């Protein structure tokens, strides 16, 4: 479903990704871990099509298509979703309006009819329950004045509504207390399908108790320095990253 080959990217002329190779198949959950500043968010943003990053080498193929050649909105319409590490506040656009606009664009791209406001309200009711979110959040401006936890839940709500095929969650667990973490993880798990895949970027093993990965990758200094099964996350929890970093830097 997603094949990344030797991906290199720069921001402000600084090379951040130095050759990433990663294959994600339908139904799989991949965890990406690594120290601060190692390039995890950069990888996520490059896959989502952020214009600030320049791809300088390598390829990324999504469902047989050249992902890197697609505009950000086309990627989203094709089923790629990024839950932002730092969700963006958009004062003046209500959450409900934003979600419906996004939902309809994605339906249009799939050749489906736009949804009427009534049916959309029903859909929202169902999805809000999933992330245990209060209805009042819908009338508020997107992420504006939301607490850290509310923002993260809002990302998962968007994911629940848009039903992506490839979801990339960038530190969705950071700053969440254990209850919120459980809610977010439940949301992600209940959206799991045999034909979709998830990349979970996280600092903490604890999220992986709830969202159990098939593969764990360690990103350090712009490269994947180690890949393994879910037990790798436990090892990282116990030993930290230093034992992997030394050889990577050498």
């Amino acid at each position, binding site marked *: 479903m997603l094949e990344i080959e030797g991906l290199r990217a720069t921001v402000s002329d600084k090379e951040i990704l130095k050759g990433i190779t990663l294959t994600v198949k339908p139904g799989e959950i991949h965890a990406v871990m690594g120290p601060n500043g190692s390039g995890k968010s950069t990888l996520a943003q490059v896959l989502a099509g952020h214009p600030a990053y320049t791809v300088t080498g390598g390829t990324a193929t999504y469902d047989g298509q050249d992902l890197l050649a697609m505009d950000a909105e086309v990627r989203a319409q094709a089923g790629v979703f990024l839950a932002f590490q730092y969700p963006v506040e958009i004062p003046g656009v209500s959450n409900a309006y934003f979600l419906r606009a996004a939902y309809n664009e994605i339906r249009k791209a799939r050749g489906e009819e736009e949804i009427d406001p009534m049916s959309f309200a029903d859909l929202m009711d169902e999805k809000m329950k999933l992330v245990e979110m209060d209805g009042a959040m819908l009338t508020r*401006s997107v992420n504006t004045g939301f607490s850290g936890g509310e923002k993260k839940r809002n990302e998962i709500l968007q994911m629940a509504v848009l039903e992506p095929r490839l979801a990339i969650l960038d530190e969705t667990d950071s700053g969440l207390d254990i209850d919120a973490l459980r809610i977010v993880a439940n949301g992600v798990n209940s959206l799991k399908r045999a034909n979709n895949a998830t990349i979970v970027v996280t600092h903490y093993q604890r999220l992986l108790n709830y969202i159990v990965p098939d593969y764990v990758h360690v990103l350090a200094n712009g490269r994947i320095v180690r890949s393994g099964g879910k037990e790798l996350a436990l090892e990282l929890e116990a030993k930290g990253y230093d034992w992997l970093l030394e050889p990577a830097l050498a």
Partner: protein
Amino acid sequence: MIDSYLRGFETFSRNGAASAPQWARSLRLSGITRFEQLGFPDKRNEDWHFTSVAPLAEREFLPLTTGATRVTAAQLSPFTFGATDWHTLVFVNGRFDAELSSTASLPDGVEVMSLARAYDEMPVLLEQHVGRIASIDAHSFTALNTAFINDGAVVHVRQDVEVARPIHLLFVSDAGAVDGVIQPRNLIVLDRFAKATVIESYVTVALGASAYFTNTVTEATVAEGATLTHLKLQRESAQAYHVGTLDVRQARDSHLVSFSFATGAILSRTNTYTELRGEGCGATLNGLYLGDDEQTIDHQTRIEHVEPNCYSRELYKGILDGASHGVFNGKVYVHPEAQKTDGKQTNNTLLLSERAKIDTKPQLEIFADDVKCTHGATVGRLDETSLFYMKSRGINARTARELLTYAFAADVLETIELAEVREALEAATLRRYASV
């Protein structure tokens, strides 16, 4: 070209002015005298540094002689917000129109009427306030307005009375206004603990491509503990000239919530002034200006913190397209006695075209030492991160731009409490910037 106004004044003094009381006549005389001394301001005048009034000064606008009303209720419906239970005074080409107005359901303790009628019914109140709030000393346009005081609206809300529905002063111009000058003079008096919402609308119907000039002054006094919500909606035709001043005096524990929406006229200047003359006052001055083509939209605000423990909040936003020119000059004076003043001023402008420009000048003058005052101004284009966020949800680039443009404006429109006005302005702004 002040001559035409001086000549107009002579004619005016001979005809229509006779019925006014003596104090009003001498006020007019001081107005024309001051206007003759001052003339129109030029760019050397610090208050007019960014806006040239030459296009207005060089034209000849004549005081209007009363013409027959051609405006119908149907023509006004786009400007009445679908409300049927508001208290509305309609002025056509500056003259009160009783037939189009509706004040039947006013509660006890509230008087809303034309200035001409108020001369008879509230002589003391008028003499006490008219010309005592808005200064003519350094303000040419206020002096000019004062010279021609003749019609306008008077609103008086008595102690403890809360007026539930808004009072709408609707100034409409039609073909009868061509080449004329319209000079409403309004007075709003809120007694202790009174509460009211007053809307001033300036609109044009069926005018065509001809110019006219609105020069309006509203004086307001808000007594102890009273709250005045004032909305000014300037939606005149694209050929109109508009200068408008709201000047407010606030007593202790009173509140002013002001909003200025300006989108019409080739050249407009809106002054919003208030003096916080007692402790515990609050003033919120917000505004939105939407410009295009060759429009100039100028706002000047002045907040005088005279006494301690007051706050002021100011948020003015603008969207400028075409070759339009915006000006924001926000003055905040904190007098030496006004300790614990809490002031915040923000002006954000979005430029949609290379040719559009904004001059923004916050002016904080603080003479007290224990205060918290901030100001900030931003000028820019749409935020790339927000655009990316929306695109990452599948929203196409054009829609994302449109929505963000709308959202920029909605952010300040949201502060309007009156639902009918907020929703109407939001809808109009959405239609203007978004094709969704």
